[in-house]
């Protein structure tokens, strides 16, 4: 469709005119006329909702909201075209079969072996070995080898040595969805462990010998402690209500030597609504500070993030400081349980704070343990009530921790944002379906590519320059401050306002420091080379030769410039709250204040665009996403930007 306008959300005056394309996998907007062919690509999988708004004089507005928080506002001249686009997008954004998803057609031009290697990058049995299992206390069980015991669990689970197959099967019958207690994290320093399960089917008074034995086995696997914590991550009221439905929680009287604890985190419906409300705040036009803070508080979002974090901290403390094992569950043990176990693991073990370790963590606690990616993130069209930003919350917890401990993580914010992006993008096969069983049935590993391989290949973009393996912050357990600490939780505008470049620090400190680090390293290497040469020359008698050291002008290439010319930015509208009309003549007659509309004339000092090398994914895109260079087609992050502004991906 031609003559479509793409509006800028913050500034209604900035609209780009171009052509809209709909392909089998993407929506593409190509801006007219610009010499740098500015394109905005949106994967259908990313589309969360499409809203057709009332036709105005300028055309028919269409609002596309994405799961990665991009909001695209289009104005299509003809109502009929708009309707066609709307209907098509509705269909395209709600695939019915897995085969419709992009990952099955995405082709990064790797051969079969490379594809396989990509999938082997993250190996969970290696991970469990790294943790120190199997050992005297823990063993691998293959009782679920055909998914016969629990179809949402993996084929290989780790259980205490004294847990026989009989105990496991018995316990699984007493647990919601048959999700029996299994090992999530083992601390070899003190034998304490984190195990996870779903809620017991205890109702008001039911008991199960095998389940009780299972918990006893877990406790015994930690000789250093005489009790076991059982943490229920639901609000007490919800857990109690479950009893009426024949489910519930562990009764301390029935299970020997357990200490039961509620650490309430709300359910998926509350979280879905919370996110919705927060996004509404983000969509406000020129909100006041009050509007924003009230709106944010009203959404409850940060409160929920803190609740997840607090639960993770409790468990990490229990393991690291008290040396006590913990069994965590919620209702079905695949949402809050996953969040809390992975936060705790991250706090406990510095390995999970590395790039590779983080991928392993997600693979372990989310992918292998049957987090319902399809239902939660809408790979396929399904029940809207199953949709919930569960992993988004976990990822945000990680970001909040990164802000508190800037040296502790090997990866940077951009890594987290890209991971989140790809959970929804369905460009890779890692996050399809609801369980390992389903993925194997679909033969995902033979038909799609692994995100981990792609990220690993590009890991240079994802590094945190402040990370040093020998730094004090990277050793041992992270101990976030407990109360008072409400002010520590910040609104993550890098994620929720990701595409609004005007909001962020325009210069990326991370990128700059990485470039500095690289340059320093190169200089040091060159210095070494020169020293050697000098030594050699001094040995020989040749004193005619001049040593030419070819130093490329690295600074420009790496976006490092001593005069940060790429900084040129434009003022936003500082007079938003007033009616706008151009004020040209000085004597306007009235005493009231009038808004000052300042024209967006070209910047006086236009500077060379140093961004060309800063990030492959911003600005110019190759029309075919089948590019061999990893092909990770992230959306061009400068949709609707002012063409004057330097393209500088500030993540």
């Amino acid at each position, binding site marked *: 469709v031609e003559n479509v306008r793409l509006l800028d959300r913050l500034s209604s005056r900035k609209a780009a005119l171009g052509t809209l394309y709909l392909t089998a996998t993407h929506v593409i907007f190509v801006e007219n006329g610009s010499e740098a062919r500015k394109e905005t690509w949106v994967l259908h999988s990313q589309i969360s909702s499409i809203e057709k708004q009332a036709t105005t004089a300028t055309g028919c507005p269409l609002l596309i909201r994405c799961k990665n928080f991009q909001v695209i506002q289009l104005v299509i001249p003809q109502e009929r075209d708009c309707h066609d686009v709307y209907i098509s997008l509705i269909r395209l954004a709600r695939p019915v079969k897995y085969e419709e998803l992009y990952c099955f057609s995405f082709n990064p031009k790797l051969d079969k072996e490379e594809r396989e290697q990509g999938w082997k990058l993250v190996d969970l049995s290696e991970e469990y070995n790294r943790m120190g299992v199997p050992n005297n206390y823990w063993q691998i069980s293959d009782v679920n080898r055909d998914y016969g015991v629990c179809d949402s669990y993996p084929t290989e689970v780790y259980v205490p040595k004294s847990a026989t197959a009989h105990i496991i099967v018995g316990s699984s019958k007493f647990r919601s969805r048959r999700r029996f207690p299994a090992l999530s994290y083992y601390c070899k320093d003190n034998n304490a462990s984190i195990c996870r399960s779903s809620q017991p089917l205890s109702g008001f008074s039911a008991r199960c010998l095998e389940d009780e034995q299972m918990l006893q086995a877990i406790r015994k696997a930690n000789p250093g402690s005489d009790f076991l914590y059982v943490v229920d991550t639901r609000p007490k009221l919800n857990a109690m209500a479950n009893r009426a439905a024949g489910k519930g929680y562990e009764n301390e009287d029935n299970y020997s030597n357990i200490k039961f604890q509620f650490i309430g985190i709300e359910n998926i419906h509350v979280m879905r609504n919370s996110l919705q409300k927060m996004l509404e705040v983000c969509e406000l036009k020129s909100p006041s500070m009050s509007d924003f803070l009230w709106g944010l508080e009203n959404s409850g979002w940060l409160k929920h993030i803190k609740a997840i974090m607090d639960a993770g901290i409790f468990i990490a403390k229990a393991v690291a400081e008290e040396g006590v094992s913990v069994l965590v569950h919620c209702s079905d043990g695949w949402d809050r349980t996953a969040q809390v176990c992975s936060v705790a693991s991250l706090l406990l073990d510095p390995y999970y704070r590395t790039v590779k370790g983080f991928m392993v963590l997600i693979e372990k606690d989310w992918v292998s343990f049957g987090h319902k990616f399809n239902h939660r993130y809408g790979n396929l069209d399904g029940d809207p009530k199953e949709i919930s930003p569960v992993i988004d919350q976990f990822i945000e917890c990680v970001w909040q921790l990164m802000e508190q401990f800037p040296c502790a993580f090997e990866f940077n914010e951009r890594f987290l944002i890209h991971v989140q992006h790809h959970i929804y993008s369905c460009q890779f096969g890692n996050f399809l379906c609801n369980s390992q069983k389903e993925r194997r049935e679909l033969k995902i590993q033979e038909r799609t590519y692994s995100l981990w391989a792609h990220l690993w290949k590009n890991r240079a973009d994802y590094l945190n320059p*402040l990370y040093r393996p020998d730094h004090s912050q990277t050793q041992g357990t992270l101990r976030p401050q407990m109360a008072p600490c409400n002010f520590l939780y910040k609104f993550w505008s890098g994620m929720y306002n990701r595409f609004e470049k005007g909001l962020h620090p325009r210069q990326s400190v991370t990128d700059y420091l990485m470039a500095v680090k690289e340059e320093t390293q190169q200089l040091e290497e060159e210095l070494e080379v020169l020293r050697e040469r000098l030594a050699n020359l001094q040995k020989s008698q040749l004193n005619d030769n001049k040593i030419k050291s070819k130093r490329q002008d690295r600074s420009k290439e790496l976006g490092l410039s001593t005069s940060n010319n790429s900084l040129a930015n434009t003022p936003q509208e500082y007079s938003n709250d007033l009616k706008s009309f151009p004020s040209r003549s000085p004597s306007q007659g009235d005493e009231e204040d009038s808004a000052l509309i300042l024209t967006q004339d070209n910047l006086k000092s236009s500077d060379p665009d140093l961004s060309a090398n800063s990030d492959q994914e911003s600005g110019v895109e190759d029309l075919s996403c089948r590019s061999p260079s990893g092909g990770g087609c992230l959306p061009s992050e400068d949709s609707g930007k002012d063409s004057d502004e330097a393209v500088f991906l500030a993540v």
Partner: protein
Amino acid sequence: MLRSSQPLTGPNRKRCREDEMLLGSVLDEGERGFIIDTRSAQAAKQARMTGGGTEPKSSYPQWKRLHRPLERGRPLQESFIKLVEACNDTSVSMDRWLSRLESSRWLSHVKAALSTACLAAQCMDREEASVLVHGAEGTDTTLLVTALAQVILDPSCRTLGGFQGLLEREWIEAGHPFHLRCARSAYSHARLKQEAPLFLLFLDCVWQLNRQFPFSLEFSERLLLTLFDNAYASAYGTFLCNNEKERRRNAPRLSHRCLCKVKESTHSLWAWLNQPGEKKKYLNPLYSHNALVIWPSVEPQSIQLWQGLFSRWIRSSQYLEEAWAEIQRLAEGN
């Protein structure tokens, strides 16, 4: 950019030829200028009742008046006190924290100050027009706007030396009454009438600029914290008294406020800060001269609580300090 105090038009709409000529002489034929009045239109009108007022259109035809109300005085001090209380309150749960933060209104004041300074800067940089800034007395919000606008516009004000010069010029010499304004701070029960944290608000706005443009200011947060400390209690004479007159002369009538001959009797904060050993503590390792104007975003998401100041004694800054040490190390390694 010019600054002044309010014109004394009074209820009878008095005129003053000299004042009109003065302002007229700033502009060329056909040029226009902007007057940014930091009071609301209503407050400015009401000021006439007590002898003050605004510049009437008819008398100052080339000047266009804009009102941008900025908080000052007691309400600003209350805002500060409320914020500090909220930060210290360990009983506030997460679901009440943001509304506590909001009810202090401090961040709204930061947003308003930045917006107004940006407006002044826009007038000059984009419209190429002269700007006159005043409130009532010309000693509080006026200075806030003119000083901030200069940090935004002028790269030399963003250097360590330039910033000190800016403070000296726009705050100290311009007569911001430090002695009255920076008296007891947020914990005092005294609630003095003349106390108001304008200077802190200015420092907070500069901190916001620093956060949004991490490479563009030569000095670090540490300098801002040091300035905050010294404005309230200092071993140096720089922030003493309320104006140059009090600092210079031996004025016995001013009784206990007569800290006369400041320059002879005390040491200068700047002299101490600029010693090579001290100076490097206040430098921003990421600094790189930026010749351009820096336009901050004043969207709520872009304005953050200055934790380094308000939570300074509540939370450990160890991890952040370690991060800065690392940044320093990397920057120096290059």
